[in-house]
């Protein structure tokens, strides 16, 4: 019986399809639960920072709060503004959510544990994250309303600017690894995590991910005190919910990228001997640490001015990452440490 099942799953076209769907669900369902509890963690941590209790009414310690919020959101009425471009208005939240999900196909949670272990994994992640801006831009334009439009404009400029320096940071890591495969990137860090030799790039990458996910202190696209809620001002109910889920899933995705590129993915810190199955737990712990930093920063720093944000992206991050890339390449070349330097 088991043999027949295994044979069906591995050697039949339909079986392969079913197997892929199961793999995708095995990533996406825990991801969505994590998104739900990330919103809870954010409110609890912010509460602690501001000497409040945070959500504590629904369930023990308020643990069921995310589900109460989800039900509330589903029950609300979907409002589509009459002046909006309807198809695009509905497309935008779906696009944001779908993009936040498809990127997870290449994330390896353990050695070889990725839905798709492709050779250009880093490029795939970079491509998907650079598409995130479309959900926001389309939402802002389709709403046919001035504050969403301003938010979309800000977001477009901001995300394009920070992508450039993010790209250079990734190239620096790739120069040290000699492969675009995410699995290879993690295994290259077995002896030393890249956050040590490339510490400045680690900091730069972290700040860029804040800008890329539109998180505080770079949350200008939604800037509630200036442009109300920015690009998702006109959205309600589930369409708003999809933006919300997408934003938090993107936060987790960016944290995973940071973990893979700089913090050694599933590898145990200081080479602590742990069984193979413990890898994903290390991975999730590292991701949680970065997510905590995301929330910590939100509770600590005031929002940047728009011109400061742009100046930092183009006049500080870009030249510095370029310089550091050349430096790293030069050092690797000079000491003969280049991978595959045959």
């Amino acid at each position: 019986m088991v043999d027949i099942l295994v044979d069906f799953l591995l050697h039949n076209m339909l079986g392969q399809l079913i197997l892929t769907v199961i793999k995708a669900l095995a990533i996406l369902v825990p991801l969505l639960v994590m998104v739900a509890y990330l919103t809870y963690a954010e409110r609890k941590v912010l509460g602690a920072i501001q000497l409040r209790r945070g959500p504590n009414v629904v369930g023990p310690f308020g643990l069921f709060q995310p589900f109460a919020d989800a039900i509330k959101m589903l029950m609300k009425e979907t409002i589509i503004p009459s002046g909006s471009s309807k198809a695009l208005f509905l497309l935008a939240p779906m696009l944001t959510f779908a993009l936040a999900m498809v990127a997870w196909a290449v994330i390896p949670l353990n050695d070889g544990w990725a839905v798709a272990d492709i050779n250009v994994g880093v490029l795939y992640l970079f491509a998907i994250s650079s598409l995130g801006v479309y959900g926001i831009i389309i939402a802002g334009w389709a709403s046919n309303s001035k504050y969403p439009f301003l938010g979309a404009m800000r977001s477009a400029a901001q995300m394009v600017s920070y992508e450039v320096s993010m790209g250079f940071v990734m190239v620096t890591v790739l120069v040290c690894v000699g492969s675009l495969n995410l699995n290879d990137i993690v295994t290259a860090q077995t002896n030393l995590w890249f956050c040590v030799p490339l510490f400045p790039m680690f900091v730069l990458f972290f700040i860029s991910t804040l800008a890329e996910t539109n998180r505080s202190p770079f949350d200008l696209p939604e800037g509630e005190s200036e442009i109300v809620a920015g690009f998702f001002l006109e959205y309600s109910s589930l369409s708003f919910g999809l933006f919300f889920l997408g934003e938090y899933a993107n936060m987790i995705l960016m944290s995973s990228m940071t973990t893979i590129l700089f913090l050694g993915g599933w590898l145990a810190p200081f080479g602590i001997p742990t069984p193979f199955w413990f890898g994903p737990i290390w991975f999730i712990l590292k991701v949680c640490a970065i997510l905590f930093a995301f929330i910590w920063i939100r509770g600590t720093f005031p929002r940047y001015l728009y011109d400061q944000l742009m100046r930092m992206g183009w006049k500080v991050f870009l030249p510095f990452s370029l310089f550091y890339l050349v430096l790293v390449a030069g050092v690797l070349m000079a000491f003969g440490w280049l991978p595959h330097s045959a």
Partner: protein
Amino acid sequence: MIATLAFYLFSAILIASAAMVVTSRNPVHAVLFLILSFFNAAALFLLAGAEFLAMTLVIVYVGAVAVLFLFVVMMLDVNFVQLREGFQRYLPVGATIGVVLLGELVLVTGGWRIAPGSDALRFAPMDATVENTRQIGQMLYTDYILLFQVSGLILLVAMIGAIVLTLRDRRTSRHQNVAAQIARTAADTLVLVDVVRGAGVPADHYLRPKVAEAKPVAPATSHGDHH
């Protein structure tokens, strides 16, 4: 079988969306169709086994170039009805130019003779054991490094040209002095006032901005301002 089906699917969407780019009335929709066609082109690259090119196409064209297109088109508010106004009047001239260009193209491509050995070169250039990212790198940065550098230089010149053309006059535009802003401290701008408990705060005793020193103002701008 599936690959063939996928090829026809992606090609069909590619052609349809490319046609929509030209024909759609709303410029924003046109750009979005352009993005869709970029995606399908990337999918075709993937089917051909060129995953590096596919990803680069998405990153460069969809992730950066098309975002700027969209940005500009949204800001400009192009009115296509106005642009089409003289359509009938200009049709004969446009059609004539089109026919002439088509004729030239036919003449050029009709007389194009393919070198005898080129097919063999085109169909067997790849070493299947090396991934195509590495092959492209080898080609660009080792075999054709000089051409690569020259194209980089041309782009640099174009970039400098664009900056020279758009750089505004610095005297008439307003600029921030970042160093001065950062060097500013609370002591420079705020007066701290001790408040006696229970006595209330007199109207002029709040924590308030210092009165800025009067700066010499150009006569043209201070006209009519007598406070």
